[in-house]
């Protein structure tokens, strides 16, 4: 296997994590990852150096944006067991953070996840979204403020409970 393919393959778990948080639904998330990988493998000859990791995140982010655009006219799906009364503790917190993410606008959600979950630099995120760093900073600030308010509204102690 080529070094290129090795690099792509080693990124699959992280891409799946990002896609899961971005798209919420596990099957849709893996569809996104699958299409990202196919495009990356087909574009191997077009890839002229640079950071494969950022490049893969860029493809996935763009695919998700296209997907959301094409589904914009369809009804919004909500989880069947969203209001499971037995959910508590870690499970409830996980559910709350997923809902908080779902309530963000697309570009803010993507910035928040790339920085906080995937650990990318502001510069890398700016390149992925094709915007200036200042835009990344303001999206990040708004996303953090929104999620904080959302979580405090749902479970006032949730941000305090961790640590």
């Amino acid at each position, binding site marked *: 296997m080529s070094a290129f393919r090795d690099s792509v393959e080693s990124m699959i778990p992280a891409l799946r994590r990002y896609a899961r948080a971005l798209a919420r639904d596990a099957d849709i998330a893996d569809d996104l990852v699958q299409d990202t990988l196919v495009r990356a493998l087909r574009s191997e000859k077009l890839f002229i150096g640079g950071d494969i990791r950022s490049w893969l995140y860029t493809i996935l982010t763009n695919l998700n944006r296209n997907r959301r655009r094409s589904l914009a006219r369809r009804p919004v799906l909500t989880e069947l067991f969203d209001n499971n009364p037995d959910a508590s503790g870690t499970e409830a917190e996980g559910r709350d953070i997923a809902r908080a993410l779902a309530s963000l606008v697309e570009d803010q959600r993507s910035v928040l996840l790339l920085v*906080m979950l995937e650990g990318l630099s502001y510069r890398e995120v700016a390149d992925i979204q094709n915007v200036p760093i200042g835009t990344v900073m303001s999206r990040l600030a708004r996303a953090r403020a929104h999620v904080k308010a959302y979580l405090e509204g749902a479970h006032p102690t949730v941000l305090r409970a961790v*640590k």
Partner: protein
Amino acid sequence: MTEPNMPVTEDELHAYVDNALPAERRGDVEAWLKTHPGDAERVRSWRAMADLLHARYDSVLDEAVPKRLEIDELEQRPRRWIYGAIAATLVAFVAGGSAGWVARGATAAPSAFQNFTVDALDAHRLYVVEVRHPVEVAGSERAHLQQWLSKRVGYEIKAPELDASGLKLVGGRLLPGPEAPAAFFMYESPSGERYTLYTSRAATGTTQMRYASQDKDGAMFWAEKGVGYVVSGPTDRDRLNQVARLVYDQTEKSGG
């Protein structure tokens, strides 16, 4: 740059949490947080938020990678239909009309008729791979199938005879369509090639027949008098065209 009394900005608080702050400024921020409890509380909540995200999603890293995402698998098999790709393909196709393809990208919003075709292709992709339960009502109950589906879709629909193309009716099922229930028929050749017909009321008058393809699947689609039709099958365009013409001729006779 690093004079201790310089106020800490909001951007610096974020950079501090994300380890993106120049090392020489960290001490200043830490001193600032001791005397600004509101900012200290925000910084703490952002860190807790990162912990919540990792607690919720890091388990994905430990999951076994599904077979369909393995590199060898992806290189051997063509990509499956993926909504974004289909929508982009169809937009490109419709923009170009039947004359050919115009690469417009996916920037235009898909029309209702494109959504209709995407639904039909989704159904095709979903059911042609079914071995045991490809249809709800078998082709041996043709009369019952036609009667039932006509009642549900709201117009007279007959399962076309495609024997001239070597295709036998496997059966059919009722599906949800974008605007009204859809009838779905599946046909099979002796060698196992499967073609499907998807039809439903559509908010589109009459269009010419169009063709779209991707990897190993192709579709001919058209609308007539407010009813849409999509014939999907393998990408052999001549053959697909032949099948679609047979369907077209028979639906025309039945009055659509």
